[in-house]
């Protein structure tokens, strides 16, 4: 039933990989001037659908109609030529080239047998100005933050005069402000009649911009819904395919933990600060509680974690663990006194993709034992198996390479690495970024379970509802300083947002 307004119609798309039905009879349509969210957990088939559309993979069955004509792109290049452009989560541009080159290279203007740099720069700034981005296009792309790089990627797509723009998790490394800027651009493109496919894990964002939502689960189409007609809870239920007892479990767990706190804090800081990155901060962390950190990206949350764990050295103040002052903090010392830190950027700071799940899990234990006290192989396997079970890591065996696991499972492997050291204090910086709702809930639940076992956790996250759900106390950061500490009934979304915004409620 191809309507005239359908810019794109994918019908009965099926794709099988050896042993896996990645997509089974999926329909997808996109109108002109529409933002269409594609939702689903990791492995639901979103990426496969996009890959079919952009010519990276070929479907086994089904047809794609673009502007009413059947198409079969064989490569991303061909898809681009047809007017289908993709902006990926990790920006696929060249950081060493200038902004202008990144937008126009391949279609650069020539003059007298050479590249016409003046025309090139002028054209590039015209496009960016249209997107409300005012930057020096002659600078290297790498000198700009990811948000700008994403705008540059979109500009490149515009320059190819795309009719369909696919945004694959564009917001996962953007701040709230940057995300809002991106949405403005998306609405502008929409009003020009472009069809936008928007893939994201953030529910808020879907409700902020999307006109329709298509939900996939396990390679099957769950349905396409008008955003206004689909309440959030229903959307979540459709995505994970079960009702929300897990969330209820969690609130029960939260009740259970955080009740009896020790009289002495297990970790205490007084005036701990670092010039330029963190104003002196006072903190008390008790065993058996989860201490949440709210605040915008760059508000100083990660800096606190780095100081606490000894990654960075403090310029002022004291850090006391279990009543003993820590004179020379270092990550190794922190591990030895029973602390663990799961950093924000797991690709860069955490996971070793070419090692197996087992090797990744035992890494921190081995480091704390010293490299010469080799942990026996069967003990390693036993530890790995235990945490694979506890954390519900889906991997065929302990010997699978970590890079072959999905993002959520990689994150769980990092958690397992630190849990295996049996820490008393666990610092988690954005432990659920970029992973799907089901895995998020499991990790949140796990954090609360640890608290009931008497461990102290610091939980840093950009997603407010997550902080609200897990934390017994919340510290709000703004402009590299602690601005408030909220306890019990004070912890609500509105209050935290106002505090972040700097309005006195």
């Amino acid at each position, binding site marked *: 039933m191809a309507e005239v307004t359908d810019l794109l119609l994918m019908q009965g798309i099926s794709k099988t990989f050896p042993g896996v039905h990645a997509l089974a009879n999926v329909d997808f349509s996109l109108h002109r001037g529409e933002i269409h969210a594609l939702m689903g957990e990791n492995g639901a088939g979103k990426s496969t659908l996009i890959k079919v559309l952009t010519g990276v993979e070929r479907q086994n069955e089904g047809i794609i109609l673009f502007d009413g004509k059947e198409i079969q792109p064989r490569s991303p290049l061909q898809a681009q030529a047809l007017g289908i452009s993709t902006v990926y989560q990790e920006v*696929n541009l*060249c*950081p*060493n080239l200038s902004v202008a080159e990144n937008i126009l290279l391949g279609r650069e203007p020539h003059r007298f047998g050479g590249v016409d740099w003046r025309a090139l720069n002028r054209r590039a*700034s015209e496009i960016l100005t249209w997107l409300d981005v005012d930057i020096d296009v002659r600078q290297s792309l790498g000198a700009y933050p990811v948000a700008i790089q994403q705008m540059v990627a979109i500009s490149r797509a515009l320059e190819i005069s795309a009719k369909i723009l696919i945004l694959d998790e564009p917001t996962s490394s953007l*701040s*709230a402000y940057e995300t*809002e800027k991106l949405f403005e651009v998306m609405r502008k493109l929409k009003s020009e009649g472009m069809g936008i496919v928007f893939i994201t894990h953030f529910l808020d964002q879907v409700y902020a911009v999307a006109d329709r939502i298509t939900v996939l689960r396990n390679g099957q189409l769950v349905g396409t819904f008008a955003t206004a007609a689909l309440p959030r809870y229903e959307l979540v239920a459709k995505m994970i395919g079960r009702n929300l007892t897990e969330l209820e479990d969690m609130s029960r767990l939260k009740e259970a933990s955080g009740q009896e706190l020790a009289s002495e804090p297990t970790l205490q800081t007084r005036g701990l600060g670092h010039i330029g990155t963190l104003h002196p901060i006072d903190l008390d962390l008790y065993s058996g509680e989860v201490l949440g950190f709210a605040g915008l990206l760059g508000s100083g949350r990660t800096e606190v974690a780095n100081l606490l764990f000894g990654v960075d050295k403090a310029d002022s103040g004291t850090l006391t663990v279990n009543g003993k002052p820590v004179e020379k903090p270092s990550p190794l010392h922190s591990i030895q006194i029973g602390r663990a830190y799961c950093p924000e950027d797991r690709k860069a700071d955490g996971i070793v993709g070419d090692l197996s799940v087992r090797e990744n899990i035992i890494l921190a234990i081995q480091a704390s034992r010293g490299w010469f006290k080799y942990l026996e192989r069967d003990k390693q396997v036993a530890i790995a198996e235990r945490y694979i079970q506890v954390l519900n890591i889906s991997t065929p065996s302990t010997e699978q390479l970590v890079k072959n696991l999905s993002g959520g499972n990689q994150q769980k492997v990092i958690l397992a690495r630190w849990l295996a050291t049996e820490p008393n204090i666990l610092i988690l910086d954005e432990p659920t970024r970029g992973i799907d709702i089901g895995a998020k809930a499991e990790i949140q639940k796990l954090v609360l379970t640890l608290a009931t076992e008497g461990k102290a956790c610091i939980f840093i996250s950009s997603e407010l509802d997550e902080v609200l759900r897990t934390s017994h106390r919340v510290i709000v950061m*703004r402009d590299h300083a602690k601005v408030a500490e909220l306890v019990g009934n004070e912890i609500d979304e509105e209050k935290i947002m106002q505090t972040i915004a700097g309005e006195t409620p």
Partner: protein
Amino acid sequence: MSTKFNLDRKFLPMLVSIGLFLLLYLYGIVQYKGFSSPQVFFNLLIDNAFLLITSIGMTFVILSGGIDLSVGAVIAFTTVFSAFLLETTGLSPAVVIPLVLLIGVAQGAFVGTIIHYFKVQPFIVTLASMFFFRGMCFVISTDAITITNEFYRAVALFRIPLIGKTFISINVVIVLVVLLVALYLAHLTRFGRTVYAIGGSEQSALLMGLPVARTKILVYTLNGFCSALAGVVFSIYMLSGYGLYTTGLELDAIASVVIGGTMLTGGVGYVIGTVFGVLIQGLIQTIIMFQGDLNSWWTKIVVGLLTLFFIALQSAFAARSKSRLAASTQKTLAMHAPTSAAAGAQK
């Protein structure tokens, strides 16, 4: 768009090497009598012509994120094969020179094709090529062959007079032509910009729809041509061909490129920087010569230290620009954060 010219940080390593060259030059002038003669500078060009040519070719290879170990062997092969053809078969230079250049081109194209289509590390492929050509030298002749050809001798002895009593050789003119062509290729053609793009991120270049395969093969082809041309220049300079010439020259070329401020990881660097990288090495040699009581191997020691210094410098710049980026991100956030959060609160 701001109209003020901002000095991009990517120029810094190159500016450091230019500064270093000027400093060394000044040191030479102050320290040694006769160093200030312009001929000292021209001799730098005359004596290093072949290294300049091959290093310029190497710059493109390294900019694309690759490496080529075969250049020394290809240069030696070119000298031996040219000498053999000229002396034994009596072929005219008008045939010999195009022929050896063609061999260099074919060698580069072949190596580039293997590297790209069979996805083999450039290190290994060019290492194989290096052994092959070094071996071929001795298949042709185990001894040095003196070139007696009239044309070669005439070119070798020809002095192009400049101001005063100074002069340059024809080889220097060849270098200048190669340099101009290289600058044009690097900065004013799609080929050149694609080389930079591939060095920045091959995957991205591919997704941006740039001709990655063609460009990579062309880069090695260009370098093959440059090494053969350096071989011709070197046989004119030495007036002989020998299989033991220019052993390890590929490493001198790589060092020149690095000292000239090009990142070994590819994507960042300038042809002009490489020229100064070569000249710095030549200058150190000249200073040691003027000093008189130092072993010429000290050049290698200084070059080694310099290479290390430049690599450290590059990682320092890389680390600094990363933290600068973080700082600027925080600044923009701090500026806009309250309004956006307030907008969120109103929802």
